[in-house]
């Protein structure tokens, strides 16, 4: 495991170091791709002006609200459609058809509906998250082992007890899988929403800096997004490890 960490660190270090050297020697043009040292300096300036925290907070707020609302609605609708056959028969084809629409392409109309404020970003981000969590929850609810339901019913469970004690816990891994995808989607929704029309936020900052050819600032923003994604995924991974401790650990791939 330590060996893996060392290898990984070495790889990252090599890439960053070569980037620095190549850019310093003008083998690659820092005007287009910036340079690690310049990104570092920019991050410091970005932070000390107070702008970094301000813009990051706006984007994070939109993404997290999108994740929370989209996730909650996705789980709720997923359960309703998963359990009520009539509802699923009527609605599932419609939901699936709507899923085919590229939602990011709809961003301009959401700006029209909800304005350039944070609401339109939350909506876009929530919509992306909703679909991922909904489909995953729906499949989870549908794939509960009927033998478990039968056994618990024979132990004396009511319908609501079966829902709470069998169907819900058995769907948790599926819900978490949806949320894992949802983290990335919520960030995409917030950023793209900011591209389309905003006066602040990391997405707005990327647009703004690009129009002034400030590649250093663009790269700083991308670095920040990378950090946010990593942090959120790490949090989720810890939550998963706790919530799914009842599953045999069959992950032989890494770590």
């Amino acid at each position, binding site marked *: 495991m330590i060996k893996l960490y060392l290898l990984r660190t070495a790889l990252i270090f090599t890439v960053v170091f070569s980037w620095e050297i190549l850019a310093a020697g003008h083998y690659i043009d820092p005007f287009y791709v910036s340079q690690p040292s310049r990104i570092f300096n920019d991050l410091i300036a970005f932070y000390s002006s107070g702008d970094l925290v301000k813009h990051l907070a706006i984007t994070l707020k939109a993404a997290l609200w999108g994740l929370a609302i989209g996730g909650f609605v996705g789980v709720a609708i997923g359960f309703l459609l998963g359990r009520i056959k009539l509802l699923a028969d009527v609605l599932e084809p419609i939901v699936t058809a709507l899923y085919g629409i590229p939602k990011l392409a709809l961003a301009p109309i959401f700006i029209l509906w909800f304005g350039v404020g944070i609401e339109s970003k939350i909506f876009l981000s929530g919509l992306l998250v909703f679909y991922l969590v909904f489909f995953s929850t729906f499949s989870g609810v549908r794939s509960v082992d009927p033998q478990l339901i039968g056994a618990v*019913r*024979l132990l*004396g469970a009511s319908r609501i007890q079966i829902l709470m004690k069998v169907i819900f*816990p058995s769907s948790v891994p599926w819900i978490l899988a949806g949320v894992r995808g949802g983290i990335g989607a919520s960030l995409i929704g917030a950023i793209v929403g900011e591209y389309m029309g905003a006066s602040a936020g990391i997405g707005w900052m990327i647009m703004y800096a690009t129009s002034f050819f400030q590649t250093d600032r663009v790269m700083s923003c991308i670095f920040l997004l990378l950090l946010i994604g990593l942090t959120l995924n790490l949090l989720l991974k810890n939550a998963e490890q706790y919530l799914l401790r*009842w599953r045999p650990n069959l992950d032989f791939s890494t770590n």
Partner: protein
Amino acid sequence: MVLTVDNILLSVSDLNKSFKSSSGDTVEALKNLNLEIKRQEFLAIVGPSGCGKSTLLNILAGLYPPDSGTIARDMADGNGLRNIGHISQADTLLPWRTVVQNVELGLELRGVSKGRRRAVVEKLIEQVDLSQFKNNYPFELSGGMKKRAIIIRALAYDPDIIFMDEPFVGLDVQTRDLLEEDILKLWHETRKTIVFVTHDLAEAITLADRVIIMSSRPSTVKSEHTIHLPRPRSTVDIKFTEDFTETYKKIWDDLSAEVKKSRSK
């Protein structure tokens, strides 16, 4: 219908059940089946594979209704189904619950407080020697341990009757002997009515007061044999007694005829 005849816990008359198979034709599983189950008895049901043993048990436990026929029960909650324990052929422990949490589920569903259900459950867990694993999840248990947990899960809420559908299938002989020992011990201590389905005749004779042979499909009760072997029985030693071999031979003739019939279909 509630029974009034003394000492009969459950009585089944003219039970019919058929299934529509996915290929479209009808499979008659049970046909005009009659059966009486006495209070506190250990009843074993033996029959060829696919004859409808699980179907019968599922209907008796209330998992689904028969097509026709009556089932009369004389239980604490009348005709209710909360006094029934059912152990199916499958592994039905909830994987996200520890052994303790699984075993106490029946009590939890009945609203028993945590303190009281833990007291009951811990004792049962000790009786089947699972204390060391009580806080483990099912994936960490061996097949035999899982079976033991499933069995005491059905005992924990004190049902009047427990249906066991080939609970030991897929286990090695040694584990099986030990579990049979466990079952008999628990039965002596609790005096529950047990209906035990198996296709192992020796197992049926070892455990039961009465063995019922089911015919091949469409299935009815073909014959019934009272087992006169003395109790308490040692599940291993008893198999070497003359009485056992004699009983076995007698019932085997009956059973093998049915097995052959179901094979030739």
